């Protein structure tokens, strides 16, 4: 009975404008906090924002993988974050052991080497991700949705342990051959080359993806399958192949994200777990299934994280990042499950 009364009062709260009022109040507080921090130190604030932008771009590529797969299969592909981590680790091997790139190599060798690695990684992880779908998820097309979700959780652990078996528990990194000197400098505001490189890779990849989904035949097939699987099968679309292609694209995105991440951070086998959850939160925040939503959500999460960890004036700090990110996730799912841009299929891409 108590539970019922509580439910009723919760519903009443939801229906009244109270929740809306609360969220506006919260947004206003965040606004005050941001302005306050900006006034305290404009240059520092901008630098932190640039870090957020870079991280947000990386999250965006991973988030797109979640959102593409969710759009087409309504499956949260838990293994995606771990595929991302594995791709970064493999990229480090290619760069260090196969290509043997050094810090003092010529600019041409570095740029060529990075591009070559990017292409190899993207193809490799497109294949791996499509194989995961083939092995683990295809049999479960008609099973209850819970079954596929549980399988995805299991796959996540398998992929993570593959990374563990191949690379052990040590952190991997690559030599910092992209100089950390400033690419753009304006007084105290700096944006270093290695962060800028993240954008240089991310932006074309995103443009390419948008073009693919919007303008190609295969992209159209993807949108059709996302909208109605049976109807598109009747229209002669090869549904299984389309789903495979979607997984392949998601894998390629995870691969490129892995390389970009590696340019700035160390990685190890379990990096993908936390980052995967953050990216998933970003996808939900933007409206899962919606491509531009995923990027928007990822940038927002990137900013939130950077502000929380980098600002000084009344900031919770990095101890609370996880709580804040998941708090946002829960709040979004409870109060606005359709996300900010509110569409469930990639039609609006």
């Amino acid at each position, binding site marked *: 009975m108590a*539970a*019922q009364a*509580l*439910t*009723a009062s*919760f*519903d009443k709260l939801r229906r009244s404008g109270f929740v809306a009022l609360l969220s506006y109040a919260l947004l206003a507080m965040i606004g005050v906090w941001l302005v306050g921090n900006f006034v305290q130190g404009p240059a520092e604030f901008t630098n932190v924002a640039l870090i957020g932008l870079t991280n947000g771009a990386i999250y965006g590529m991973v988030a797109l993988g979640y959102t593409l797969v969710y759009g087409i299969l*309504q*499956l*949260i592909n838990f293994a995606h974050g771990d595929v991302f981590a594995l791709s970064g680790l493999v990229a480090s091997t290619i760069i260090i052991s196969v290509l043997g790139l050094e810090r003092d190599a010529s600019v041409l060798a570095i740029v060529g080497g990075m591009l070559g690695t990017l292409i190899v990684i993207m193809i490799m992880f497109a294949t791996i991700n499509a194989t995961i779908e083939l092995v*683990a998820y295809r*049999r*479960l097309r*008609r*099973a*209850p*949705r*819970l*079954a*596929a*979700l*549980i*399988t995805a*959780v*299991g*796959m*996540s*652990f*398998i992929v*993570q*342990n*593959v990374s*563990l*078996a191949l690379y052990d528990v040590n952190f991997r990194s690559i030599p910092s051959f992209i100089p950390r000197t400033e690419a753009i400098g304006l007084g105290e505001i700096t944006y270093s080359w290695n962060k800028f490189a993240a954008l240089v890779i991310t932006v074309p990849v995103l443009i390419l993806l948008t073009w693919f989904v919007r303008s190609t035949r295969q992209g159209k097939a993807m949108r059709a399958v996302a909208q109605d699987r049976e109807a598109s099968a009747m229209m002669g679309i090869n549904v299984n192949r389309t789903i495979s292609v979607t997984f392949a694209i998601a894998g390629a995105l995870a691969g490129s994200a892995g390389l970009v991440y590696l340019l700035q951070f160390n990685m190890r086998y379990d990096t993908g*777990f936390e980052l995967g*959850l953050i990216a*998933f939160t970003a996808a*939900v925040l933007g409206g899962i299934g919606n491509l531009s939503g995923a990027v928007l959500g990822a940038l927002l999460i990137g900013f939130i994280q950077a502000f929380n960890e980098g600002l000084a004036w009344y900031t919770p700090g990095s*101890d*609370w990042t*996880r*709580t804040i990110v*998941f*708090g946002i*996730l*829960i709040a979004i*799912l*409870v109060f606005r*499950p*359709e996300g900010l841009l*509110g569409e*469930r299929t990639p039609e609006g891409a």
Partner: protein
Amino acid sequence: MTAVEERLRSLGPGALLVPVVILLALLYPKYVESLGDAPLIGNFVPALGSMVIMIVFTMMAVGLNIVVGYAGLLDLGYVAFYAAGAYTSAWFASQQFDQWTFHFGSVGIAETVPGIHLSIWIVLLIAGIFTAITGILIGLPTLRLRGDYLAIVTLGFGEIIPQVVRNGDNVFGFDLTHGTFGISPIDSPGFGSVGESLGLPLSYQQSFDRAQWFYWTALVLLLITVFCSSQLRDSRLGRAWIAIREDETAAAAMGVPLMRTKTWSYAIGAFFGGVAGAFYASFKSGAFPADFYFNISIFLLCMVILGGMGSIWGVILGGMILGYLNVEGLATLGSELQGAGIDFDPTKYQFGFYGAIVVLMMLFRPTGLISERRHKRELELGVADTPLYDVTTEGADTDRDPSND
């Protein structure tokens, strides 16, 4: 007489198996040592201390089964309930709050020791109730979501609560959780001087047969959980859970109050998780934030899936198998392999094994080792899987006026 016979027959051959298994389990401390000396299998026999941990985790799995197996709600954050239970035990039976001194039924410690010290038996109950309330509070806003969204929200809570615990050493100047250090020591269960005159130990921790007493207590707690769980399944509430699992819309049409029924499954599942967590904290004599990570939730889920969702005996079997592998089995196997000259450490990849088990079970035997009859039918014939939270008509299916329930 015939009625009893009929009832026994309807229960099948399992009816005889159950008392035998319970008896064997109760006598385990008496023959574990001679079993350990047996050739070949001797090294693989779990010690009593390991058995306690296995039983505690199995108990949590049985609790999780109420949520996942009966009501069909995927909970990826069950570890939060475990943590809530463990910390309740740490608050009410340790020196954490040494600004107060309060003793009630505490055993084996001087009356002058500061902190709140309640009898562990009371603490177990408090932990269960506190955790159930936590479950209701988590459930109320989230249970209106369906399927995978619910899974994600629970996962979010499972991630937040450990971090809150870790950062909880300074809640506006108040040390609630003692941060990363955790709270230790926690008082031990016992029967005090009254129990001592009856031949029961005054305090488990100070008893010579400490493992044995912890083992029996854990076993009794598990049996209570199993009893409640099986009674609940056949109750009105249990049938409502299964109806919701099979078809939420039809269940609602038949007058099953969705929110209330789901919340109850959350609360009751959480209750057992809390009791198990509190008991485990008392057994380990500590609650540490590092114990409550996401993998535990998956580990428990894996037990439920391996055994068979919804099937109590299956979950117990799955729980004991995986618990054994986790606590002792993989390590023993590793050292045996080492002895045979193979350099491979299976404990390092334990979660890989669990992941593989989950995937293989889902692909090839989704009903688990011991299938529950109804679940089997569901998986074979399929269920009316309604689309998750339909955003175009927001909450049309679940957004009912609860005052009509």
